[in-house]
């Protein structure tokens, strides 16, 4: 019976003109979006690579200078463009693309791409992820809203009950066809979207991530089919089923806008003026103008002595100015850990509000997972900013230590040259691994699976109750 229903469902779907038109439109849009994604990736990656080259040359060719001057001159850490950003740019346009690494100060990522974009419309632009997470579910709504209720309206449902078919069998048959459609759509559209990236030589694709994306889209589509089947099983007319399914789509697509606003108001970020003032008052003034310097320098000096098993700084010929500079770095870094920790924590808290919204919206859950796997989510941005900061600390320490060990009495008159600049590593960023990402999004994944199971069970129960009434 299940197989018969499955065969009939697939046959009806393939014969449906609506299906062919919608499929063709979605296919065409996906091809265009995939090409655009590829173009965007190529352009961004080439700009980044050119900027990195100029940055490196500028650093190396700065000429002779005191290492601390060089630390003030600073370097830029530029964000890597993740290969899968061609599929899902996520927050990439709205997050800083570079971090300035300089002495004494930790800086947040800045230079957002969106600031230079002419916004002709407030809603999302055409990207493969947007098509797959917003338009394909709508196609599913249009195709499937009548899946059960239309049978009831035509009277075929009563025949099925008379032939001793069970509601669970009917639901299983409908679900199996949904599974096949979902698998086809996910596999076809995800691979189609990622295809152009393959031809781009300069980026490496993590195929496991692509597979994970396809699986997540598959689960989400099954889930959406499940919800629509549930709606179709519960209501009396196709008309109501359509409006409820459309309402479900609208709510799940636009609801997150409201949640994002709530998240922003519940967990406001500090004002940049206050943040800058806090840095001056807590990381700079207490050390340079207050009493914190003496203790901090003494602790650091003792550490250096222990490291070298020496009794006196003079014995090692250490330059005291550089010692003080590095002591300040250590002092300020603790303040930055706290201030930036609180800032990132606010971002994470906003994220958790949005995460809770994904419990109520499978489409939103899917969008979040997709961004995570593409490494274009908030966590990836925080990871980049933290990696850049670690790199800053390493560079400044290296430069301060060079001055500490080599400047001697010359202090700020001491100059280093290209030989030292060459030893300073370029910023290399490694995205978090896939298993870490999936672990972070387990709530969203659970939400999708729960929605699927619940919709299946509820649809079966609803149909069971209705079938009894109809047979009577």
């Amino acid at each position: 019976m299940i197989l018969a229903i499955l065969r009939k469902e697939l046959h009806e779907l393939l014969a449906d003109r609506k299906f062919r038109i919608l499929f063709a439109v979605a296919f065409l849009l996906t091809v265009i979006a995939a090409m655009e994604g590829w173009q965007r990736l190529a352009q961004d990656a080439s700009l980044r690579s050119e900027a990195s080259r100029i940055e490196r040359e500028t650093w190396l060719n700065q000429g002779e200078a005191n290492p601390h001057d060089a630390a003030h001159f600073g370097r830029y850490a530029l964000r890597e463009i993740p290969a899968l950003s061609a599929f899902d740019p996520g927050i990439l346009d709205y997050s800083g693309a570079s971090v300035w690494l300089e002495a004494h100060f930790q800086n947040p990522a800045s230079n957002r791409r969106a600031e230079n974009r002419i916004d002709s419309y407030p809603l999302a632009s055409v990207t493969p992820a947007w098509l797959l997470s917003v338009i394909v579910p709508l196609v599913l709504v249009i195709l499937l809203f009548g899946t059960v209720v239309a049978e009831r309206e035509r009277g075929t449902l009563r025949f099925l009950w008379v032939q001793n078919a069970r509601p669970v069998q009917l639901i299983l048959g409908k679900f199996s066809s949904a599974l096949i459609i979902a698998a086809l759509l996910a596999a076809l559209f995800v691979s189609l979207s990622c295809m152009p990236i393959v031809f781009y030589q300069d980026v490496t694709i993590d195929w496991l991530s692509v597979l994970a994306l396809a699986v997540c889209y598959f689960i989400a589509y099954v889930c959406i089919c499940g919800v629509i089947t549930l709606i179709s099983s519960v209501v009396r007319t196709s008309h109501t089923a359509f409006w409820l399914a459309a309402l479900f789509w609208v709510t799940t697509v636009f609801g997150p806008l409201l949640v994002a606003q709530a998240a922003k108001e519940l967990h406001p970020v500090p004002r940049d003026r206050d943040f800058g003032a806090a840095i001056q008052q807590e990381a700079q003034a207490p050390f340079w103008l207050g009493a914190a310097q003496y203790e901090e320098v003494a602790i650091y000096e003792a550490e250096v002595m222990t490291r070298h098993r020496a009794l006196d700084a003079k014995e090692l010929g250490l330059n005291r100015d550089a010692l003080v500079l590095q002591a300040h770095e250590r002092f300020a870094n603790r303040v930055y850990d706290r201030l930036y920790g609180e800032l990132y924590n606010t971002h994470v808290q906003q994220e958790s509000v949005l995460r809770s919204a994904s419990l109520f919206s499978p489409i939103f859950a899917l969008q979040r997972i997709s961004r995570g796997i593409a490494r274009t989510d908030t966590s990836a941005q925080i990871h980049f900013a933290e990696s850049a900061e670690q790199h800053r600390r390493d560079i400044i320490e290296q430069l301060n230590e060079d001055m500490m060990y080599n400047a001697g009495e010359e202090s700020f008159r001491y100059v280093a040259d290209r030989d030292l600049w060459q030893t300073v590593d370029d910023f290399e960023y490694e995205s978090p691994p896939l298993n870490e990402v999936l672990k972070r999004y387990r709530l969203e994944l659970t939400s999708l699976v729960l929605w699927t199971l619940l919709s299946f069970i509820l649809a079966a129960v609803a149909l069971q109750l209705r079938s009894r009434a109809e047979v009577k």
Partner: protein
Amino acid sequence: MVVYVASFSVGQLLVFGAFALLVCFAVIGGVQWKTGVLEEQAQPSQEVAESRAAWFESLELSATGTSVSPALAHPMNLPVLVLKPPGPLGQFSHRREDLHPSAGVVNGFSNEALIFRRYELESPVSLLHGGLDLLLVVLVVMPLALCLLNYNHLASEREQGRLSVLVIQGARPAGILFSRTLQCSTPLLVILVFASVVGTVLSGPTDLSTLVRFILWCTVIFAYWCFWVAICSLVATKCANSINAALASVSVWILIVVILPSGLQFGMDRFTESASKVHLLALARSAEADALGSVDQRAEALMAQHSTEISHLKIEAPTYYRSAYVANASINDRVGGLLDAHAQKVKTNHLRLDIVQAFSPATAAFRALQESSGAGYLRASNFEHQVRSFFRHYFELVGVATLQGRRLTLDEAEEIGTFNYRESVATSTVLSAIAVLLVLSALLLFHANATARKLEVSHL
């Protein structure tokens, strides 16, 4: 009134209620946002005002021949606050206003690439989603509510066979359709206009230019509403049963509100070039390195990046100021042209959009609403352009004195003046959008009327 309300079904009343609630949220959020920004901008204004007063006081003392430290009233240290106030009706379209810089302090240590350097602390995900503002409600929710309220006016009658009876009794399908559509759609327009009035009044005193903007804002809302009423009427005449009418309504909504504007945005992104910030950064960086190579006191020049500390420590080093000036002048030479070219491109693209927006009514409405309220990318770009012009004027006057190693005269200092953002409305964008929407509405209504007439004949 009671009779009018009683003529609506429970479902329709629910739609009105939900719509009013959303509008209410949007307006309250907008007013709160605007008040917050104004308060925030008042604080640095106070600080900079005090700092300017101290600077002028020292300059006046020095002019009278009193001995004043070289670090005080130095030309490079004259601070000028540049602020982009919230748009006159910015409370209605504040969704992504946090994205662009709205404040900065110009002094001799600035350069054109870094005038707006600031801590970008906003969460990217909240910028991505933006907030709920009245503009979004008008643009996205109002059409959906109109579709929901109006799709079934004729289809249900046709489905149940009542239309023939009504036609035989002398009723005209067009009359039934338009009266029902107007009855169901007018409350939405009233809610929006009322909310706009309340939002404007709550945001503080209004002047004549705000009033003009308000009239434009309401006119665009009206034109967009007319367009959707016309669309709904046409859909209602075309579909023979409720389910097809519902499907058609939603499809049209998706097409006009989501697909067409996204396609247009896609085209703009694809075929227009915008300056990359990363590219600009690399150029500024390279210019900075060249400049540092050409100045004699590199260490001092590098400290130009720490103007706050320098003024705090009251460093008395003429070469330091000169080096900082030379370094920044070199950076300006390198990136100024690029920024000008970018501003020009923005204007050109804006004009192109004025033409192609006719293909996407939602885009036309969006741009017109944004322009009339005073928000968005074009305004941000205008602000940056005005600040750069001001900065060039400032930098030129300050530069002469700095290179000559002297203070500004009081007249020169007065000539620098203060920065005031000059508001402007791209009236061509607003008026062309209104025209496009009204013409489309008229065409659609004409078509709907013709279809309804055919329906009448066929039912006779």
